[in-house]
C-alpha cells in the first residue's frame, strides 16, 4: 500500500476527474472532456473505467469487476487485482455485496440499489461517431439536438434487415435531450439503464466521462411501427436453467456441440447454489 497513493492516481488528477464526473451528473448524457492519464494498462483495457473508479473509490468500498458479465476473465481479474494493490479495497464477486462495480459491456442481472455505483468502460463514447467522423461536427449536432442521422441509421437497419439490427451499443435518449451511447452493452440491458444506482461512464482513450444519475429517464431510440425490442437467445441457461437472463453461446467441441450459459457468472452461480439446474449441468460437470 505504501508504494502507491490511495487508488493509484495523484490527488490533482483525481480532483480533475471528480469535477468532470460532477458536470457529467449535472448534464446527464453529455460527454464531458477530461485529461485522461496514461494508466499501467493498454487503451482498450478499461483505462477510462479505471480512472473513474480510482476517483470514486473510498477505503470502505467493496469492489467488483465484470467483463461481459464474468468475474473471472483476464480483464476483470487484472483490474480487480490492480485496486486490491493500489487502493487496498475489499473485493467481491457477489453483486449484492459490492458498493462499486466496474463493468465491461454488461449490466448485472440482479437489480442494483441506491447504495451502489456502476462504472462502465467505454470504447467509443460518441454515438454519432460511425455516422460522422468529425468531432467538430458531432459536437455541433449534440448542441443543436440534430439527431436525424441516427434515425436514418436505424431506418436503414429496417430497410436492409427488416428490423432494427443494432444488437449492442444501442443508442438511447437521456431525459429527452442528449443521445448517448450506453457503451457496448447488449440491447437486452437497455431497459435496465433506468436504475436506482449512480451510473458513470469512462472512456480513457477518447478522454470523455459521462453519467446517469439514479432514475434518469433513458429511452432507447425506435420508431412507432418498429418499437424497441429487447432480445436474448431463445434458450434456457444450460447450467442454471434461467430463462430470463442474457446468454452467451459456448462452442463445446469440434463437432459443433454448443450450450447457452448466463453471461452473468455471479447470477448463474447464485442460482445453482439455490438448487436450480439446467439441462446440461451434469454434462458440464463431467467436462470439468
Amino acid at each position: 500500500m505504501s508504494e502507491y497513493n490511495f487508488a493509484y492516481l495523484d490527488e490533482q488528477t483525481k480532483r480533475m476527474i471528480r469535477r468532470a464526473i460532477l458536470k457529467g451528473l449535472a448534464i446527464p448524457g453529455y460527454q464531458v472532456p477530461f485529461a485522461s492519464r496514461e494508466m499501467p494498462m493498454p487503451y482498450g483495457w478499461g483505462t477510462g473505467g479505471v480512472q473513474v473508479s480510482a476517483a470514486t473509490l473510498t477505503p470502505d468500498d467493496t469492489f467488483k469487476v465484470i467483463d461481459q458479465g464474468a468475474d473471472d476473465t483476464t480483464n476483470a481479474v487484472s483490474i480487480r487485482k490492480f485496486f486490491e494493490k493500489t487502493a487496498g479495497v475489499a473485493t467481491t464477486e457477489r453483486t449484492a455485496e459490492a458498493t462499486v462495480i466496474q463493468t465491461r459491456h454488461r449490466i448485472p442481472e440482479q437489480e442494483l440499489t441506491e447504495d451502489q455505483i456502476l462504472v462502465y468502460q467505454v470504447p467509443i463514447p460518441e454515438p454519432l461517431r460511425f455516422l460522422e467522423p468529425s468531432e467538430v461536427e458531432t459536437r455541433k449536432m449534440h448542441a443543436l439536438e440534430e439527431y436525424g442521422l441516427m434515425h436514418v441509421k436505424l431506418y436503414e437497419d429496417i430497410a436492409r434487415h427488416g428490423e432494427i439490427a443494432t444488437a449492442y451499443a444501442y443508442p438511447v435518449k437521456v431525459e429527452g435531450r442528449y443521445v448517448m451511447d450506453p457503451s457496448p452493452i447488449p440491447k437486452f440491458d437497455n431497459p435496465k439503464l433506468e436504475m436506482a444506482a449512480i451510473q458513470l461512464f469512462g472512456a480513457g482513450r477518447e478522454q470523455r466521462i459521462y453519467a446517469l444519475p439514479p432514475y434518469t429517464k433513458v429511452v432507447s431510440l425506435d420508431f412507432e411501427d418498429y418499437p424497441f425490442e429487447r432480445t436474448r437467445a431463445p434458450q434456457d441457461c444450460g447450467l442454471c436453467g434461467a430463462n430470463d437472463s442474457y446468454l452467451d453461446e459456448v462452442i463445446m467441441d469440434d463437432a459443433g456441440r454448443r450450450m447457452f450459459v448466463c453471461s452473468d457468472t455471479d447470477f448463474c452461480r447464485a442460482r445453482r447454489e439455490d438448487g436450480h439446474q439446467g439441462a446440461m449441468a451434469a454434462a458440464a460437470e463431467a467436462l470439468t
Partner: protein
Amino acid sequence: MSACVDTEALSGGFDTPPVAAAHAFRAAMSALARPGRIETISGGRAPAPVSVAAATLLLTLCDAETPLHLAGAHDNRAMRDWVAFHLGAPLVAPGDAMFALGTWEALGGLDRYAQGTPDYPDRSATLIVELSDLVASGSRLRGPGIRDAAALNLPDPVALQRNAAQFPLGLDFYFTCDSRIAALPRSTRIG
C-alpha cells in the same frame, strides 16, 4: 506589506488528504446525483465565515486549475491566505470563475457567472451557497436523480427556475450549512 502569513491560514487542511477527499467526494457526488438529499461532509476547516461543508468541498474539488470567486464576507484576508496555501486557486471576478463561494445575497445575479456554451455546456460555474439553514422542505424538486419528488429550502426559487430553464446550459449549486451539504444541478425542475 506584512511578510508574515497568519498561521490560521496554514491549518484546516485534510488530515489524510487522499482518504478524506475520497469520502468528501462521495458525499458531494451523492448529493449532486440525488438533488435535495442532504449529506454530511467534513474534514476541512477554513476561516470564518466559511462552513465546514464549504471548506471540505473546496479542498476536494479546487486547486490551481480552478479559478475561484469569493463573494461578500467570504472574501476576507484570512480566507484569501487560506485559499492561497491550501488550494492555490486563482481568485477571480464572477465571470471568470469555475467555482464561487458566498451567501446567496453576496453571490449576486446568476447571469454574472459562466453558463457554459452550447458546444461545451460543462464549462459553467458551480456556486457554493452558504445557507443559515438547510432542510428538506420548501421547493418541490423533480428530475434526474429523484425518483418521485424531493424538497429543499431554496434561497430564490424563481431565479433557480430560470437557471433550470436554460438546460443544458446553466449553473450548478451546492448548498452548505455547518457540515451538511445538498445540491441542485441545472437538470432539476423546480415547482
